[in-house]
């Protein structure tokens, strides 16, 4: 492998932004996976598609409208789910299809802007700007600080809502906070893997890490390490072989999952 690629400034930005997103998706994703909300990231990503289309139509930077639409729809669907007692998977299906439907209608009304949409669907990490990188780092920093500060409340309400309530934890507020953070994380990550593959970064490193049979903090660290490894190697390999970074990143993450399953089946990992 030629080390020359590591001297390009666009590659520096891609790797810095990619590592930040990898850590963010892994940490926020762990709470979603443990709450059986694995596809929630996917649903928010699809709703962000409507937001992106809206931004392109209105001539506003599409990620801003994507943030607004994704966060709003994630919070609204959570409220509707609680109020009308709709199951988690059904509410995810509603959110997912409404986002795509809104996006398609707006694209139809505007006469189409397929080239811009394509980069949002599949990611464009090598094109990430300095401003984008700063924004990604800032949002990652803020969300990680919030998670560290509210670590006990987040973990406890994920483990058992009823007991958390009895311990005086404001479980409903914590639930909305997780959904809010998931909305921000998804839109921030769109530049790395695109709308269609986001849930892979939320789910695969975490499912892999959980198999190692460790406690919460160690599981989070293992998941982050796998996530960062997949993103860094994925970006470099895809550049060298001129293939899509998003697909490569996700395939490497799946490779790590398969290897872990192999270790577990062979008895090298403790059974849980």
């Amino acid at each position, binding site marked *: 492998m030629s080390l020359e690629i590591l001297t390009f400034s666009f590659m520096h930005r891609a790797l810095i932004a990619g590592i930040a997103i990898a850590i963010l998706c892994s940490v926020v994703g762990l709470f979603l996976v443990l709450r059986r909300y694995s596809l929630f990231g996917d649903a928010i990503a699809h709703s962000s598609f409507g937001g992106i289309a809206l931004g392109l139509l209105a001539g506003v930077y599409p990620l801003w409208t994507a943030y607004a639409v994704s966060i709003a729809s994630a919070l609204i669907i959570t409220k509707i789910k609680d109020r009308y007692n709709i199951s988690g998977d059904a509410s995810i299906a509603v959110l997912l299809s409404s986002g795509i439907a809104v996006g398609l209608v707006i694209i139809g009304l505007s006469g189409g802007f397929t080239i811009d949409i394509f980069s949002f669907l599949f990611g464009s990490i090598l094109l990430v700007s300095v401003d984008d990188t700063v924004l990604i780092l800032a949002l990652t920093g803020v969300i990680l600080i919030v998670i560290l500060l509210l670590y006990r409340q987040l973990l406890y309400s994920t483990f058992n809502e*009823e*007991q958390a309530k*009895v*311990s*005086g934890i404001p479980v409903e507020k914590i639930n909305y906070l997780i959904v809010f953070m998931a909305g921000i994380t998804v839109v921030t990550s769109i530049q790395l893997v695109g709308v269609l593959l986001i849930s892979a970064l939320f789910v695969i490193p975490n499912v892999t890490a959980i198999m190692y049979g460790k*406690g919460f903090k*160690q599981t989070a660290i293992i998941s982050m390490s796998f996530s960062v490894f997949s993103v860094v190697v994925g970006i470099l390999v895809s550049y060298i072989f001129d293939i899509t970074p998003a697909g490569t990143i996700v395939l490497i993450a799946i490779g790590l999952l398969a290897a872990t399953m192999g270790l577990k089946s062979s008895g090298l990992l403790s059974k*849980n």
Partner: protein
Amino acid sequence: MLKVVEISNLTVQYPDVKALDDVSLVVNQGDFLGIIGPNGAGKSTLFASMLGLNTRYKGMIKFFDEDIKKSKNYLKELGYVPQKPIFEKNFPVTVTDVVRMGLRKESDENKIDEILQQLWIHELRERRIGELSGGQQQRVFIAKALVNNPKILILDEPVTGIDQQSIDLFYSILRELNSKQKITIIWSSHDLDAVNKLANHVACLNKTLFFHGESETFFSDDKLVKQYSEASMQEHMSHH
């Protein structure tokens, strides 16, 4: 005698059934109260109301002389052990992680080791909770409930589905908590014999409270015990 819990005229009406009807009850500091009653007697509804999980009730519940609808401060003095905690078997938390969840101040980290040793589960501290037996898990949840030095411990049928050896150990732990550490215990159970051996007060619930007093009074009155057993049996039959 200091009143820690005072329940007055508690009535809970669900859309199709009345779960509790005009229940009044006082628990004093140091009491070991066994709440007995057949399935559907309202024990879980009573606990849910006391813990602030059900707020749709008539009447009043006071902890330490404060109405729980006005202040949630009492939760700091309370440890709760649920019937059979529901969690994913693969949930990535160790015994230490679970006990730490109960800890209100992170500075009290040493307390975790202390409580794990006290309950003979220190050697399990790095094991995942889902790997443990039902009896061991229940001790972990007791440890979590105790880690903040609560004044009151509330246990909702805590030995459901647990082997006899673990049950005996569990009961000896409860006895010690009450007698040595002076923790007030409110405990619901199906097991009349266990209540007879452990509790110093008994509340007999079947939507209404048909007995509340010292356990000696209850268990020495054959008529009362028979009345309770018959009510239980009837309920049992109607469920089958």
